[in-house]
């Protein structure tokens, strides 16, 4: 599967308004989820009611855009029914694919909705040809969303070995743990990333200003970072905090700096590697942000495919002063 294909642009939709913006800005597909634990961005104020999903799918399809439903959490024992209902609903509403991580959910789709495309979520952490081949063989998975831990060279090798499409993240927030294999939030808050779709949930966050002007960001009972009076305090995501250890003087980013992924300069190489779809992170972002990012990447992909230089400078402004990284894509020294 290594012929040069025009990759689809897969865009985030945390709300119906963001979905319409993404469609209007030229998304090939949008991904979105329901207002419950079935999706990995189960945050207050985000996601779709069944009625909103129905209208949104119609809007997207009228605009020639596909809708991929995120059912990418792991149902805990005794609660699988909620995920099955979400699958049934998605099929009824005419969704173009379900993005799943759990074997039970994938098996249910295969058995009850054989025409529904299954995309394997990044939460399934399938990072080798063997793992991906397993999911393709068992469930007929049509596309795998790759973990954000692979170099372009590794992706290229992988594409040649697997019988399905490949989707990679190219822009947005950048988690460092293997997604789907992290229970840090549950250790601190009692809410699980995999079972509840929670990651450093806002309900457990506190900001505390000290007399010296420093600002502590706190999740549950733990200080995730402490910022000087001159620094801008970031959100306390556990894997982006500063900690201390014996090997270091003072606090350091033990896992990763609070950087944002921007692979825009590497799009030609990713296309060359045979990637079928580019994914933009950000279901928690505003519709204005979604509109700008989608439009910029629409222009970039179209330009590259037409053999022209893409205009990527606009994207730097969108990272809002955050440091950027090309993540693992460029070199395995990142590890």
């Amino acid at each position, binding site marked *: 599967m290594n012929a040069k294909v025009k990759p689809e642009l897969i865009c985030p939709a945390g709300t119906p308004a963001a979905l319409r913006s993404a469609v209007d800005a030229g998304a090939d597909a949008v991904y979105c989820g329901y207002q419950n634990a079935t999706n990995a961005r189960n945050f207050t104020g985000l996601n779709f009611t069944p009625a909103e999903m129905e209208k949104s799918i119609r809007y997207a399809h009228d605009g020639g855009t596909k809708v991929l439903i995120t059912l990418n959490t*792991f*149902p*805990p*024992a*005794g*609660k*699988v029914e909620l995920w099955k209902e979400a699958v049934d609903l998605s099929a009824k509403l005419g969704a173009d694919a379900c993005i799943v*991580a*759990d*074997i*039970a959910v994938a098996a*249910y789709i295969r058995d009850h909705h054989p025409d529904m495309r299954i995309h394997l979520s990044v939460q*399934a*952490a*399938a*990072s*080798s*040809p*063997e*793992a991906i*081949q*397993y*999911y393709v*063989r068992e469930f007929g998975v049509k596309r795998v969303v790759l973990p954000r*831990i*692979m170099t372009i060279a590794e992706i290229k090798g992988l594409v040649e070995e697997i019988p399905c499409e490949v989707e990679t993240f190219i822009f947005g927030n950048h988690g*460092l*743990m*293997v997604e*789907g*294999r*992290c*229970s*840090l939030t*549950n*250790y*601190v*808050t*009692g809410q*699980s990333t995999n*079972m509840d779709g929670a990651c450093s949930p806002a309900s457990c966050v506190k900001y505390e200003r000290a007399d010296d002007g420093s600002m502590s960001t706190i999740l549950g*009972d*733990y*200080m995730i970072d*402490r910022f000087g009076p001159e620094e801008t305090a970031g959100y306390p995501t556990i*894997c982006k905090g500063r*900690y*201390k*250890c*014996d*090997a*270091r003087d003072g606090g*350091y980013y*033990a*896992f990763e700096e609070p950087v944002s992924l921007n692979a825009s300069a590497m799009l030609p190489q990713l296309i060359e590697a045979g990637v079928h779809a580019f994914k933009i992170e950000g279901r928690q972002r505003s519709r204005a942000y979604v509109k700008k990012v989608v439009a910029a990447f629409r222009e970039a992909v179209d330009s590259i495919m037409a053999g022209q230089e893409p205009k990527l400078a606009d994207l730097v402004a969108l990272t809002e002063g955050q440091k950027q990284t090309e993540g*693992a894509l460029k070199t*395995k*020294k*990142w*590890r």
Partner: protein
Amino acid sequence: MNPSLTLGPNLFHWPAEQRIDFYNRIADESPVGTVYLGEVICSKRTPFFDDVHLPAVAERLERAGKTVVYSSFSEVVIKRERNILMDWSRQEGRDLEVNNTAALLHLTNRPHRIGGLLNVYNEDTMAYLAGQGATHFSLLPELPRAAIANLGAKARDLGVGVEVQVFGRASLALSARCYHARAHARTKDNCQFVCGEDADGMTLMTMDDKPFLTVNGIQTLSYGYLDLMADLDDMRSIGVTHFRVMPHTCDMIAVTRAFDDVLAGRIDVAEGEAKLRELGIEAPFVNGFYRGRAGHDWVPRAAELA
């Protein structure tokens, strides 16, 4: 010997001599019925112990009457890891415990075990994997009692084993990046095996000096040690068949004997817990996950029932 008590795979990078001594003592003095051997965390470590000493250590343990199960990699990305995993999957004679889906491709319709780092959250996934040859499931540390009870009931129907970690640091996250190397301003490729300096993992403290997490190469563990001794009876009643203690540098003979004594009813829970607290472990004991609370919590059983 207690067939329901198991010793999980050693997650840390101990010197080979220390490991050999450790398993010799386990063979001679520990009541555990099953011992899991094999590198789970980092493929770079295998030349030191697995590639050289594993067969002899396994035979030594088996001569002492233990069941030996091989545990396999949690992260499988590079060619070397893929090849090692395939070789391990083709081995005859001992069960392989699977910690990455990649192994399932090779093991379908052959008996194998599911490790505590593979995502089995519900009874349908358990049934699916059992239908393909999985005979035994070690559960994820973050599962609450309610989910374990459902899985236990399903396991009884399926005739498969269910194992829960009851002692030691809980695995919380995996990464492609080595955080041990990073702490020492190195990368995974030039790590110089700095993880070997921390036999129970490297403590991360918050900026206000509170111990928080433990780094072990690409793995992040809890700082607190799981202790589910007070829940052994309860777990048995909901279908848990095996109880796993994880290797640490504290006196593991004492740990496994204490669990064995409580399981066999020779001492009560209070006495067993007192023994664990005499081991000199600096970190607190935790049991929040099982209680459906934050994992770092400690909720005394009496308080929970009150």
